[in-house]
């Protein structure tokens, strides 16, 4: 009953975004094998939900399901990753980016591949996901809000925060410690 129809729609609408699904899962789980498993599970779930999808943005719809699967996986397997982030405006005042002690010519050190990847991987997952959705998946704030299930304003704050953290990590003479001890990225900032 409509099963074939759903499968046809799935092949046409969801399958083309399997690449995006994997990229997101790979960045959230931080390893290939688990990302593959999470994506496969999410695709199965997506097929089951296909009949209920009537929107026009299959990519955001699929990524929402994938993101949910990733967070379930994190909850089970990396409970420490699920940090609570402070989205209040106060926390934004402390965006580490435009710190007073840094010159405003924010010349980035000639950051390399590896360094950029490590800096993204070191971000708390709540910031990492918005950054990946924006810069790698090129999604609109509206789509990101829907996928990450947060208000539009929070998308903005988290992106600002994520970029601040990235900039700090990549600043000239920045924090070379990042390479070896990613956690110390927040070290010494007090609270």
């Amino acid at each position, binding site marked *: 009953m409509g099963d074939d129809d759903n499968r046809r729609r*799935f092949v046409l609408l969801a399958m083309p975004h399997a690449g995006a699904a994997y990229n997101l899962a790979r960045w959230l789980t931080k390893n290939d094998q688990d990302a593959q498993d999470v994506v*496969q599970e999410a695709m199965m779930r997506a097929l089951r939900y296909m009949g209920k999808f009537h929107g026009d943005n299959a990519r955001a719809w699929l990524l929402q399901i994938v993101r949910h699967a990733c967070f379930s996986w994190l909850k089970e397997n990396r409970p420490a990753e699920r940090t609570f982030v402070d989205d209040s405006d106060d926390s934004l005042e402390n965006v580490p980016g435009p710190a007073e002690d840094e010159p405003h010519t924010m010349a980035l050190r000639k950051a390399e591949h590896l360094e950029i990847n490590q800096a993204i991987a070191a971000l708390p997952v709540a910031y990492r996901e918005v950054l990946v959705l924006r810069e790698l998946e090129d999604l609109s704030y509206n789509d990101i809000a829907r996928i990450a299930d947060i208000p539009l304003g929070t998308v903005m704050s988290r*992106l600002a925060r994520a970029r601040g953290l990235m*900039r700090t990590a990549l600043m000239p003479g920045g924090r070379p410690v990042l390479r070896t001890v990613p956690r110390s990225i927040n070290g010494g900032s007090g609270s």
Partner: protein
Amino acid sequence: MKANIEARQITAFVDGELDLETQLEIEQRMRVDAELREKIEGLRQLKATIREHADYHELPAALRERLGTWIAAPVAKPATPSRAAVLIQRWWGWRPIAASLALVGVGALTMNLVTLQLTQDDRLVDEVVASHVRSTLGQHLVDVASSDHHTVKPWLSSRLDFSPPVNELHLPDCEFLGGRVDYLNGRPVAALVYRKGRHIVNAFVWPSAGKDSKADFSIERGFQTARWSQGSMTHWVVSDVNREEFKSIVRAVQAADGER
């Protein structure tokens, strides 16, 4: 004293996600506020660096295959088979013919998609020329009128599911008029509009999986067209300029894109 532009507004500004009023307000402020200008420039640099260097993890072949097998054989058992699933499985077990018919159905669907793709390619040049003609006839030449690619690119990126290369062309008597979102090849694409002399040039861009390829020139209903792939993007350029000028425009688009 420092103006109260919040960090998140600046972030939304570089993403082209602000409402028009705030966007213009910040643009205005940038002219007088060097510090703000530097902040924004820094953010743009950061964005560009991340986009250039961060890994985009491609779908592994193994997973692609797994998904392909799974979708072609949809009755794969769930981890904990429900009663209904067991019934379905039993049904399938009794109906190998039905199962193979279903496979044939999926195969036919794939074939249809392939054929569809081919006819689409044939139709594409028509679509491109039609879109060009429409844009020059109607009032809808550009959605975002600006000669600054820093304005046009974020505007387009925020309305498309990809970030198109947007460049001014270094050619005499050539003006960058702006961009619009168009619909070609069954998908939203970026259209960049230039004026060369008195002629309008439309340059269409959308993502494609193909390898880089050389420009393929042809004349369609009197319009010069060129298509090529570069940096995982399909490019189509169309205009009614003469052949020589058209070639120099295509070269300029390719060079500008290569510089990025």
